């Protein structure tokens, strides 16, 4: 007890000095046209760090260009905090960024639960704009949306609707639905099934199976689905379960027997490590591919990214990149560093992205993005399985309508 007390008294002057020094360093910057401060909370440790780092790289790449030109006569600077994929840490970090670092905008995170908590108690509570860039829960800008939260990512409603609409155009009637037994898996399943059965009322769900996220042995699930003999299967998996299900599909030759749709099955981050073990013929949806659309904006982004980080951008990098541009353009339009004016400027804002022009929808603060439906096929050019026969579903086709959103928020 005594020792701890002693240590604290020793530390206090040092801490005070550090604070004084920080204040001194920051003062000149504040006195002139001050920099715009973006606080990023995301997961930089454990398996989800793959996504957090990729998003951050996209964001940093965009800032290099943005700061060359400058925003309102100054620059955009950022500071990151590791949430360790935990909701309480995310909340503390966000609070610290707002109170101590006095950030103008909060950005984050791969964890939907954390994004929702930050949105509710920090963004709404402290009136600080928060941009969710890679969390996929539709509730962030859906029923739980409000003035201070935005999303520059795709969400489960968009993914599910893309899958549902795409499948409704196929002749299949009897479906089996299976996936990871957690929020993301069920959210995708519900959204896909809701949209599929709305577009085609004759479909029936003949069975469901749910496994724990990361389940290493998916073979029994596949053999039981094959035994039930549905017309098509909807798998709702994410993270490391993606690799496991793709391997199990390949090992059992399931894709040759049944049509399968899995959101993100066509994700390069899933397919590349699998190499020749990636199954062909699986339908997947994705919000971004570095090889599609093959337009100059995308090629320029991919080349710059690859040059800087040694590998092509994944979908998180795309969202990080557009987030930086949305922030820069919104402050330029607002004309000053003011949170309320920033929000007004961002509503309905259109920017040019690597995937073409995109818009931040004013009614729900959800970015309007196209979705790419494709089938996994080996590409001799890329030496891996990629998405092919890509059909682009426009943002307006895959997003819930503004009136649906307003209705869900009213509940």
């Amino acid at each position, binding site marked *: 007890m005594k020792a701890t007390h002693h240590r604290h008294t020793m530390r206090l002057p040092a801490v005070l000095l550090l604070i004084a020094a920080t204040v001194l360093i920051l003062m000149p910057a504040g006195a002139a046209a001050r920099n715009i401060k973006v606080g990023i909370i995301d997961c930089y440790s454990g*398996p*989800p760090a793959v996504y957090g780092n990729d998003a951050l790289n996209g964001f940093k790449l965009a800032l290099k260009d943005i700061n060359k030109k400058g925003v309102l006569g100054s620059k955009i600077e950022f500071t990151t905090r590791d949430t360790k994929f935990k909701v309480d840490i995310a909340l503390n970090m966000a609070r610290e960024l707002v109170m101590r670092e006095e950030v103008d905008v909060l950005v984050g995170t791969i964890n939907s639960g954390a994004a929702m908590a930050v949105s509710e108690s920090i963004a709404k509570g402290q009136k600080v704009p928060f941009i969710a860039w890679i969390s996929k829960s539709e509730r962030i800008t859906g029923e739980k949306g409000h003035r201070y939260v935005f999303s520059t990512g795709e969400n489960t409603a968009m993914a599910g609707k893309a899958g549902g609409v795409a499948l409704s155009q196929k002749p299949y009637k009897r479906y089996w639905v299976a996936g990871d037994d957690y929020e993301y898996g069920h959210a995708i399943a519900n959204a896909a099934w809701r949209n599929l059965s709305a577009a085609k009322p004759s479909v029936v769900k003949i069975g469901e199976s749910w496994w724990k996220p990361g389940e290493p042995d998916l073979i029994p699930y596949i053999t*039981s689905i094959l*035994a039930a003999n549905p017309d098509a299967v909807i798998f709702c998996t994410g993270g*490391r379960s993606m690799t496991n299900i793709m391997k199990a599909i390949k090992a*059992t030759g399931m894709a040759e027997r049944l049509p399968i749709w899995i959101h993100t099955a066509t994700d390069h981050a899933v397919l590349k*490590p699998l190499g020749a073990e990636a199954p062909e013929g699986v339908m997947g949806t994705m919000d971004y591919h570095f090889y599609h659309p093959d337009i100059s904006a995308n090629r320029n982004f991919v080349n710059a990214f690859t040059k800087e980080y040694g590998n092509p951008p994944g979908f998180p990098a795309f969202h990080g990149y557009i987030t930086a541009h949305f922030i820069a353009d919104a402050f330029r339009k607002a004309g000053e560093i003011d949170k309320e004016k920033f929000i007004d400027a961002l509503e309905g804002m259109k920017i040019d992205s690597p995937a073409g022009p995109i818009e931040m929808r004013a009614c729900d603060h959800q970015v309007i993005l196209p979705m790419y439906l494709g089938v996994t096929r080996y590409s001799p050019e890329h030496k891996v399985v990629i998405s092919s026969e890509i059909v682009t579903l426009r943002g307006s086709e895959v997003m819930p309508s503004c009136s649906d959103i307003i209705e869900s928020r009213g509940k």
Partner: protein
Amino acid sequence: MEWSESISIAALGSHLLVGLSRAMILFIVTSGLSFVLGVLRVPNVAHGSLYMIGAFAAFSIVNALGGGAPGFWAALVFAPLIVAGVSLVAERALFCHLYEREHLMLLLFTFALMLILGDLVKMVWGADYRSIMAPEFLRGSLPVFGSPFPKYNLFLLIVGPVVAVGLWLFSTRTRIGKIARAAAVDREMVGAVGINVSWVFAFAFVLGCFLAGLGGALVAPTVSVTLGMDHDIIIEAFLIVTIGGLGNMWGAMVGSLIFGITQSFGVLFWPQFAIVFPYAAVVIVLTLRPKGLLKSVW
């Protein structure tokens, strides 16, 4: 629900095989855990980490050798040896000073070690998802009872019994195996007859960890090699050794079979709630036989 009509004898047969092949991986990992529990009385929570290191080491070996079949076979041999090397260092530097401590202490210590090893794996291999391939002739599937049965699972069905017989021969036919078994029953007596118990313990520990590494290397081609594998396996492994009988190798086999097969049949009979079946089996076994099915050495 229409699933009842789909449960035929063929489906039962194919699910039995699938369950058995999963049980083989579980057996290889848990027999190592059980061995360490039996001989050293150490509830090694870090056993799962060694399994994960085995999988990552297999990934590195396969990649270093160009990703082909020779790499896979080399990985099956050398990945467990790498894990054995890591565990030898851990045993000589840390564990050998702690055998006399109470179990709670050991539990906390090995838990800490699990967290440390997890971070070390992240530092060495990074957080990306990794994947390795089985050799060409073990890819794809064969029709068994009308269902596709992956060839690799067939391979596991051969490896599992080979490891079991090897372990049995080792513990009954070799001197060091007999000493280890004796130490499991009465370690003071073994020391009293003039055997260097410290090295017997080191050997037992390393052998147990070798099996964790072998399990990791064997499972690597079927899953995503990634952080978090350690947590996935360790809870199942402890449940299996508990229902089988602590420290009993055949108990580990029986426990693994129960776990693998209830899971596989659970998926067939009640797919929405398949997760529950193995755990329900554990509850039933422990209610009826609190000390496990076979004789516990504790």
